[in-house]
């Protein structure tokens, strides 16, 4: 990878990274959301891998592999399994804010992310920091999804977007600092457990209560 094309690859990966986040807001089907999330995990892994190749650091490349497996493989798998055979949860029918409005909000959040990261980028201008706004925008959009979606699973997807964004920000802002990398990975392992907790509890709550209601309806 030559130095001229390195920013280009990085930009393309960042564009994909951001687009998938917007796509999650756009789609109604939860299955599609999870697919997009997996794609985003791949994009994140690609960003880290490109950074690693550029800096010739094996460590980063390994981390990228780990991220790819975790974000594009394990987490989507778990989420899809949680989705499983529950048609009631298959669609995000009526989000708190309708889809068109939330897409406009995503546009606004991106502009906001650009505005706030401008000084950071100015501190150390480099291809890596140049795409920092995309990462921050993903953080904001993930948060937005978390807030405005009703389904438990789509909220979890929003939470995972948020985490992807945070990870990307960490790698881009402090590229090559082993400590933060270690922290990020360990934080991810912790996260997997947490996500499973959230999944199981939230889903059990929603279904459980529903079931009870139905039973009560049967009763009288």
């Amino acid at each position: 990878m030559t130095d001229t094309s390195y920013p280009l690859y990085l930009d393309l990966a960042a564009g994909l990274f951001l687009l998938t986040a917007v796509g999650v807001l756009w789609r109604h089907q939860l299955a599609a959301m999870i697919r997009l999330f997996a794609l985003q995990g791949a994009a994140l892994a690609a960003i880290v891998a490109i950074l690693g190749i550029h800096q010739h650091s094996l460590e980063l490349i390994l981390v990228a592999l780990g991220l790819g497996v975790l974000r594009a493989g394990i987490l989507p798998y778990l989420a899809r399994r949680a989705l499983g055979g529950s048609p009631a949860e298959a669609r995000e029918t009526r989000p708190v804010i309708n889809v068109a409005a939330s897409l406009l909000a995503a546009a606004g959040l991106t502009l906001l992310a650009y505005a706030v990261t401008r000084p950071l980028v100015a501190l150390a201008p480099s291809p890596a920091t140049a795409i920092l706004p995309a990462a921050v925008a993903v953080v904001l959009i993930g948060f937005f999804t978390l807030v405005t979606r009703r389904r438990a699973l789509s909220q979890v997807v929003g939470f995972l977007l948020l985490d992807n964004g945070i990870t990307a920000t960490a790698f881009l802002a402090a590229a090559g600092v082993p400590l933060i990398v270690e922290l990020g990975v360990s934080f991810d392992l912790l996260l997997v457990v947490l996500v499973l907790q959230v999944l199981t509890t939230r889903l059990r709550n929603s279904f459980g209560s529903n079931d009870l209601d139905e039973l009560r309806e049967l009763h009288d």
Partner: protein
Amino acid sequence: MIGWALVGACVMAGLGVLAAVVAPRSARPAWAGAATVGIGVAGLIAGVAALSGQEFHAWLPGLLPIAGLRLAVDPLGGWFIAVTGGVLAAAALFGIGYAGGGHGPSGRGVQAALPVFAAALLLVPAAGSVSTLLVLWELMALASLLLILAEHRGRPAVAEAGWWYAALTQVGFVAILLGVLLYAAHAGGDSFADLRAAHLSPALRGTVFVLVLAGFGSKAGLVPLHVWLPRAHAEAPSPVSAMLSAAMVNLGVYGVIRVGFDLLGGGSRWWWLLVLTLGAVSALYGILQATVAADLKRLLAYSTVENMGLVFLGLGAAGIFFTSGAPGLAALALAAALLHVLNHAGFKALLFTAAGSVLRATGTRDLDALGGLRSRMPVTTVLFAIGALCAAALPPGNGFVSEWLLLQSLVHALPAGVVVTAVAMPVAVAVVALTAGLAVATFVKALGVGFFARPRSDAAAAAKESPPAMLAAMGLLAATCAASALAPAALGPALSRSVGVAVHTPATVLSGGLSLHLAGIASTVSPLLILIAVLVALAGCVLLVRLVSGRVVRRRAVQVWACGAGPLTPRMQYTATSFAEPLQRVFDDVLAPETDVDVTPYAESQYLVARMAYRARVPDRVEHALYVPIIAAARRLGRLGPVLANGSVHRYLAYGFFGVTGVLLVLAVTR
């Protein structure tokens, strides 16, 4: 030259008032109208003279008690004087024809107020000092109030509109008063020259600007101070509507440019971000309300809110560029705003006069009850179509030229890379674009539903074409629109001069002959060539069709296809309401329309429906959310009155006594 023209205008105003007082009722509108036409022509002369580079200063100490009357005309003022004069002349000519056959008001007071209003409109941009500005402004406000109330005997809605207008215009006046008096007090002088020379603290400048912006913004109908506008402009007699909507609102723009750029010299960036935001909100809100409006004059009034919003968006952009060190772009944006003022004046006066002739011919403004005017009022329909083309900002209309300029200034702002511009400009471009798109939908509705197809009411079916005087006035306006649309480059020098007053860049902003060239930007456009190309293409297309289809194919006259059922009735047509329904549904979070359906079943069974009524209206949401609470609070305050003043003399004396002692106490403590 300028001086003589202004004097002539004042003399003609006097004559007009005299004529309106002494002339018999039947002759009054003609006399007063003729005087107003004269005033307009004089204003046009003065404005053109000022734009050609002449200056004019006058100080008449006798006319105002303390400071004296001070007039100063520069190219910036000249631009607005010229626009106002042109609109006044055309609208007054239209008014003479309109009054024929007992239409419109012919009362003494109203007819006397018309020339006074016209003269005040002309003189406001010529004011050279704070006191002069305030006096003329108030004169204009009072005269316009009289004109708006002209038909209050006929319709109660007029009185309501008058109340709203009086309240908001006085609030605006107070804001301007506070602002400029604060400014003048700290500047230690009354004339604009003193104000320019003054050095104020940033906080004070900000306060002055915000106050003045509120005042002038209420006159220009910026959201949320716009609520008077759709009522007043819709309820006033149509010639007056044209003057209000095409001439008076511009003075709000003039005031902001004069104080913000010329006197305060640009100031800081947050002022103009505020202006930009207000403009964007007004543009979107105005056009959305216009899109769902079914009352023709209300639609036009809301479109005025939209266009003023676009102008203020241009001002805001200009200020942002000016304060972030891009004077070239600032000049361009300001030129776009000024050009849009001119173009909007042209097409809005045309549209309001056309709406006036429709109202005169059919007696209704309700688009749902119009239709079929194409065959009954052919000339008016064509003229309205020209106005609609311009208002929809489609090429080769004149609205397209000024919005093109505005977009150019916004699009090429990015390389001047301040974060604010980088974030604000895409949003501004999106707002302008959405506004333009909705304007297209709005005016397709106004023209297609109001004038085409078949009449939906007997009144529309009985319509007759207007008398020649009205058609002549509308024709003049249409010609002006065409001229400013096809040869915008001819306005280049004048525009550059008046922009130079504000942003102090002597460079020519836009130039070129056949096609329009900009200073510093490589983009060009030529509406004239586009028009010619389309006409050539039309001719070629006709020839080609003749050639290909061989023998001349005969056109068959057929019944409208009704899917095999009986002939279609006018009631089956799409109305303005149904036309706007999809957009209303898309934007219902913003518009919050009210719909109620009541079903009355037969007594025998609730499943047999006897009657079904469906009502849907889109109220002005700002009014409901903002003004209704304020009015309620004022009512509650008013209820205190009887309690405090219950008629006992002792209580009143006690008020006085405690007042005096209280003042003495305060003095004793503070000294």
